[in-house]
């Protein structure tokens, strides 16, 4: 029997969990600038995240999906995408959204149950969070199709979790990206869990990156806790897409260090031991250790930055909390470019009802 196809998946990693280089570093990683910048933003993201969880616990935010453990993926990505690229995120990419200019208070507004959290003009053409799993993969292909049709040197980047790779949308997306050679990059945040379902139950495939093989596109596996490896992988993929060399799939191996959302209790289904081990590999400490060892970052800088970051987050929270709710008409006013005649009567009712005051179920 002739072999008619051969494929392989390789694994990219530079830093050990202890922050030591495992092989020669890329040239750019021999300089402090980018990596300290990256680190600062990872700390900012984590601080914002802690605050968001705290807000939820005190009833000031809705159900919230923590970004804990995704910093090594989202922060490099946010720094590397061009402003004119298009981010088509899932619901865990607040760090990347922030780096692309979305004000922190808008992020909170979204998780506070307000559509205006998707409306920040700084979001440009970026998509809002996608709640229906994996649907964003396909939107990214649609965006990439538009970019390709118009011959623009822009890239559509989309993210999803390991669980999402089981859904048709993700798989159909990979396939059309390959068939049409679209300028799109798929990043899978393989954080080992889809709520309570472990990675092993999602697929019999030993890697998720090999789903790229099924679609005939480029795929690789990367240590998602290693910001250096992630930058390398993302840069290559962005560059290829931008140059018309086709799509890529990056499986970034990470770990969901938080509960699935604030509505979840992960102790019901995963062991403390596993979680404790995962913390040994986490991206923020890893990069900090590396920077320390390089002499590019020290405790004083850390303290100063922590203070700075805390006050940035605090003022964002204040702006968020000061945002008055939308008027009831807002239910109607963005449904269509122009409200159809037929809906005017209901809009009136809604306003009258709101004026009459208290609805039965108090907010």
């Amino acid at each position, binding site marked *: 029997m002739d072999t008619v196809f051969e494929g392989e998946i390789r694994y990219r990693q530079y830093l050990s969990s202890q922050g030591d280089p495992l092989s020669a570093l890329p040239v750019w990683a021999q300089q402090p600038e980018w990596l300290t910048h990256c680190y600062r933003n990872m700390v900012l993201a984590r601080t914002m995240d802690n605050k968001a969880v705290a807000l939820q616990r005190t009833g000031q935010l809705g*159900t919230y999906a923590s970004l804990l453990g995704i910093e090594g993926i989202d922060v490099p990505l946010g720094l590397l995408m061009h402003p004119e690229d298009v981010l088509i995120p899932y619901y865990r990419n607040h760090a990347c959204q922030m780096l692309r200019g979305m004000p922190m208070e808008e992020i909170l507004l979204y998780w506070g149950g307000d*559509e205006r959290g998707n409306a920040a003009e700084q979001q440009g053409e970026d998509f809002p969070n996608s709640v229906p799993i994996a649907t964003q993969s396909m939107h990214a292909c649609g965006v990439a199709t538009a970019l390709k049709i118009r011959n623009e040197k822009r890239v559509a980047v989309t993210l999803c979790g390991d669980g999402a790779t089981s859904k048709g949308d993700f798989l159909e997306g990979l396939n059309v990206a390959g068939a049409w050679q679209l300028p799109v990059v798929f990043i899978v945040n393989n954080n080992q869990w889809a709520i309570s379902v472990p990675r092993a139950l*999602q697929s019999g495939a030993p890697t998720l990156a090999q789903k790229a093989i099924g679609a005939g596109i480029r795929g690789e596996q990367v240590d998602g806790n290693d910001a250096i490896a992630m930058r390398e992988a993302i840069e290559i993929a962005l560059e290829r897409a931008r140059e018309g060399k086709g799509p890529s799939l990056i499986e970034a191996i990470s770990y969901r260090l938080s509960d699935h959302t604030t509505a979840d209790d992960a102790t*019901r289904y995963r062991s403390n031991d596993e979680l404790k081990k995962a913390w040994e590999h986490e991206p923020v400490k890893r990069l900090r250790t590396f920077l320390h060892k390089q002499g590019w970052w020290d405790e004083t800088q850390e303290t100063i930055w922590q203070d700075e970051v805390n006050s940035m987050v605090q003022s964002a929270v204040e702006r968020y909390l000061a945002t008055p709710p939308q008027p009831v008409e807002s*239910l109607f006013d963005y449904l269509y470019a122009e409200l159809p005649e037929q*809906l005017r009567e*209901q809009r009136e009712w809604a306003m009258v009802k709101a004026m009459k005051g208290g609805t039965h179920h*108090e907010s």
Partner: protein
Amino acid sequence: MNHEAITLLEAVNLALAHEMEQDENVVILGEDVGTNGGVFRATAGLKERFGNRRVMDTPLAEAMIGGLTVGMAAQGLKPIAEIQFMGFIFPALEHIICHAARMRNRTRGRLSCPLVIRAPFGGGIHAPEHHSESTETLLAHIPGLRVVVPSSPARAYGLLLSAIRNPDPVIFLEPKRIYRASKQPVLDNGAALPLDTCFTLREGSDITLVSWGAMIKETLEAAEQLAEDNISCEVIDVATISPLDMDTILASVAKTGRCVIVHEASRHLGVGAEIAATLVEKALMDLQAPPLRITGYDTVMPYFRLENHFMPNTADIKDAVRQTLEFV
């Protein structure tokens, strides 16, 4: 035998456990239904009790859940699939509409699909986007399906037993707003409640209030409050949305001459439209006033900060009742 007071959610769990115990063909599948016992805990303890061959955590794919369920049911199992939230049922619709609802008809009875698809639905719990819609119309319009909505722990228990035992596909929509809202003693004796029939929850002579699911709470509240003003409301819980038992509603309206229909779903082509249309078709002469519909708006369910504006409330129902009674 359990007859403690339990919640609707516990009643669902009890009915599932009861049928799994009785019939080894009953199996459960869905996202997070196993070790986690479901994100709402509806399947809590079942995997431990019945093993992971009968309680299956699936990969994350609703079309797949729908398709697996059809295949399993055609093989004589009685699969009960959980769709985590009704807002995620859409990828499964092709299997539900094109296959589950048609297998018996398509094969003239050679194969069939004795399956249940459970999904929590409706608003009012301040959940994220897509977690609060009421799109029962999409299923209720499909011939060959049954769509059932319980409104109390006891009805959840009895109707779910019937749904599982039913030889045809049943969509079982669970109003999550009242999952834990109140408790009621439920005897775990395997006694089913009939499908395809309304339940009259309160008798009355002035007006008929028709609702289902979580809105039964506000509907009964309205009836209670109106009673203080000597307005006597009959309250009907539709329970099976499709096929719809219009006979009970018609008989009630023949008596009261007036009707208010209450549902959370959007108004345009909500199930209330069918009820009102059939009322006028079959009982125009009984109607002393137009049947009014108190419903969600024809808008997208807003994010939770404004969701209570979308949802009908007790005051709305009372206003509609008064308006109907004043109609001349």
